[in-house]
């Protein structure tokens, strides 16, 4: 149900994009007005969300320790998985962000005849890694359209990306990877009963939206070629705040651009904000040094306690009889 609703939503967006050029003012909306609005939403939205997280106190030092602590000097520690300095905690976060350390631990449980066994399950890690790194390369490749002169690393990236040298234009590895990873992630959501039980609209929508963006982009590169020069003129125009609506934009391009705008609007309000969470998660970004260095809770408030004096007063008789020392020897 959620999957169908998400597919319908993406399909509607695609149809709007495809027919926008045929409506008066449609091309202008999709190529100028909506991208500006979307970009603004993205920037403000992300800044708002991150500042909301960063501005919320971290009352306790609660790293999830995944290895030996530093205690006695002759015991070997796990400096990254159980960091005891801020620097090593930063390394831990970096490995988490760049290589998905925790996901690499994944395993799968099997039960049969009241026995439990575990097998390795690294496909999720691999797919996630392929998806995120490909997305990064693809975003960087797109700088070709937004910057003049084109930064030096963009052609370099394209060379490596096309290193297979299949076809013309050269097949880009990241194009294959991103689609394969998205299909895998979508497939496991539909096939794995545990995930299907609790996959929300947003889970399917995010994947399908990205898939729509990737496929429309790939179509423009390998199939229905678009006029690259006019696309670059448009993006450069947008970037320099002198936007010019292209004369006859291709429907595929409009679909692509509308979906990207939708992604930009959707991102700050959705689970796609998870990229920011890795850096702010208190179970990952804190050093496990809470006994060595005092961590301060900004809202630490006093609570009622049962003091020793109260306790001794209540127990003075039995304590005296038992020969236990008393502070207030005059208790009656």
């Amino acid at each position, binding site marked *: 149900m959620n999957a169908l609703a998400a597919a319908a939503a993406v399909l509607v967006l695609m149809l709007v994009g495809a027919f926008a050029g045929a409506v008066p003012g449609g091309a202008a909306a999709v190529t100028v007005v909506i991208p500006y609005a979307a970009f603004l939403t993205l920037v403000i939205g992300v800044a708002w969300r991150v500042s909301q997280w960063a501005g*919320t106190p*971290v009352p306790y030092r609660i790293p999830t320790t995944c290895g030996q602590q530093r205690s*006695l000097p002759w*015991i070997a520690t796990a400096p990254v998985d159980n960091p005891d300095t801020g620097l090593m905690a930063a390394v831990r976060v970096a490995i988490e962000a760049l290589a998905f350390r925790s996901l690499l631990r994944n395993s799968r449980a099997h039960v049969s005849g009241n026995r439990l066994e575990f097998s390795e399950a690294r496909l999720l890690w691999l797919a996630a890694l392929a998806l995120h790194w490909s997305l990064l390369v693809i975003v960087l490749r797109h700088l070709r359209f937004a910057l003049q002169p084109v930064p030096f690393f963009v052609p370099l990236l394209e060379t490596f990306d096309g290193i297979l040298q299949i076809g013309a234009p050269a097949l880009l590895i990241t194009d294959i990877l991103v689609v394969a990873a998205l299909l895998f992630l979508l497939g496991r959501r539909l096939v794995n009963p545990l995930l299907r039980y609790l996959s929300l609209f947003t889970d399917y929508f995010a994947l399908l939206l990205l898939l729509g963006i990737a496929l429309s982009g790939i179509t423009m590169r390998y199939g229905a070629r678009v006029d690259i020069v006019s696309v670059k003129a448009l993006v450069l125009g947008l970037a320099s705040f002198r936007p010019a609506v292209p004369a006859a934009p291709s429907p595929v391009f409009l679909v692509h651009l509308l979906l990207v705008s939708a992604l930009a609007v959707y991102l700050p309000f959705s689970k796609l904000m998870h990229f920011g969470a*890795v850096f702010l998660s208190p179970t990952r970004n804190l050093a496990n040094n809470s006994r060595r260095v*005092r961590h301060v809770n900004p809202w630490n408030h006093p609570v009622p306690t049962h003091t020793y004096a109260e306790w001794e007063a209540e127990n003075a008789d039995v304590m005296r009889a038992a020969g236990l020392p008393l502070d207030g020897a005059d208790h009656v």
Partner: protein
Amino acid sequence: MGPIMSEKPVIDIALKTPKGDWRDPRVDFRKGTFSYASLPKDLSALGLPNPRKWQPTDLDWQLPPDWKRILLDGMKERLEKYRSFRLFMDVCVRCGACADKCHFYLGSGDPKNMPFARAELVRSIYRRYFTLSGKLFGSLAGGRELTEDVVKEWFYYFYQCTECRRCSVYCPFGIDTAEITMIVRELLSLIGVSTHWIMEPAAKSFQVGNHLGIPPHAFKDSLEFAADELRDITGLDIEIPINRKGAEILFVMPSADYFATPHYYTLLGYMMLFHEIGLDFTVSAYASEGGNFGSFHSNDLMKSLNAKIYDEARRLGVKWILGGECGHMWRVLHQYMDTMNGPADFLEMPVSPITGTRFENAASTRMVHICEFTADLIHHDKLKLDPSRNDPYVVTYHDSCNPSRGMGLLEEPRYVLKNACNNFHEMPASTIREYTFCCGSGAGLGNDENMEMRLRGGFPRANAVRHVREEHGVNLLTCICAIDKATLPTLMDYWVPGVQVAGVHEMLGNALVMTGEKERTVNLRGEPLAKGAADA
């Protein structure tokens, strides 16, 4: 020891394809799978709201009339006080990596026990009332209405989480269900929804000083009883000072150590060790509880109960504090105490009086774990150990959740064990250290009425013990947690009969060759030291 079950319930472990709609909050409070409600006397003793007589099986839970407002205001307050809570509500992508990592899911097959599903029970309310998309799109955006059925569902599933943090190890964003569970339990406590097995010990701990409500004279009696027992075993007069001002070290242990078995043998081990090295220490009848059931209820109750330790250390004028074997006690001591009740500037840097080792890792809290302390002694060759006295035992070690995932105390207890025992075998790597499986009874769930769920939740741990029993003939499961010691025997009896449970310092006590001791003929359990005896 746990109760002996007259008729053994038949528990089938199976992970079936989940059925139904997760948004339906209705729960079947089936006997054996939930904990009884707290009693009004305990809530009143602690000054907590809405004390009343009720049970989870009641149709009407007698919630206060404005319960919904209280919960939503409480959520708002905590979203602003805990970054963890807000972040963990916002960022889950439901990748499912955590799904089959929870012992309660593996044991029960109930899909709402998958960590991301458990969290979703709260996230759905968060979305509906605190996010724009949830307010606008409701169910389509993954939102749910907050109803009384949701309150009941929260009670069922957040008292079916032992705060073990295993899911958090696997989560790419470090989402920690323990953190969510702690906050939801705190929310429920605002409307007087809590469990008897947590609130009664918490109230007794507050008033009397320990979970079992043992008054100071009985406390003294039980320690004297231990000293008598040690005289029988070792022939030595061993003194256990209580409330002694001016001692160098305050020793704090979970109360089960002096009032329950097999904990008691661990207490004997500590006391033999302290006597042998001539430690200048005292225990306290006021701070006679290291454990902290307040931590299973709310921030404030945790802080209130924990305050006794520093207060007593200050009153007695000790230099530093040593802590016994206990899991959640050490989560609180390691990650919360200094922040809540510090700074401990009235204490000194902990230094071992025997080896001179400065425990730099405890420079601020000034509280050292007994395994750190003992490992240091052994490393400096200060103890004479005869591991052959433990030869009847084939030993494995269960990493307790809190010392492993909330601290990283992994090698110290192993070092002590390997020096005190000749036969030691690890369980499979995916079930120990940071991957350790919970006993299934932690965080206040270790009561008898919850027995079926405990046996289910403990199944993954038992499964790994069964593996080493079959492979190596393991007959002793050691651990450093009082809840483990209280509940693992029952778990072993059910799943892996023939495996006993012991503390690390019981093994040390057995092996410790003491100055002037008589010839030892029995171990701390009174069993003959001859080989094979423990199997009998």
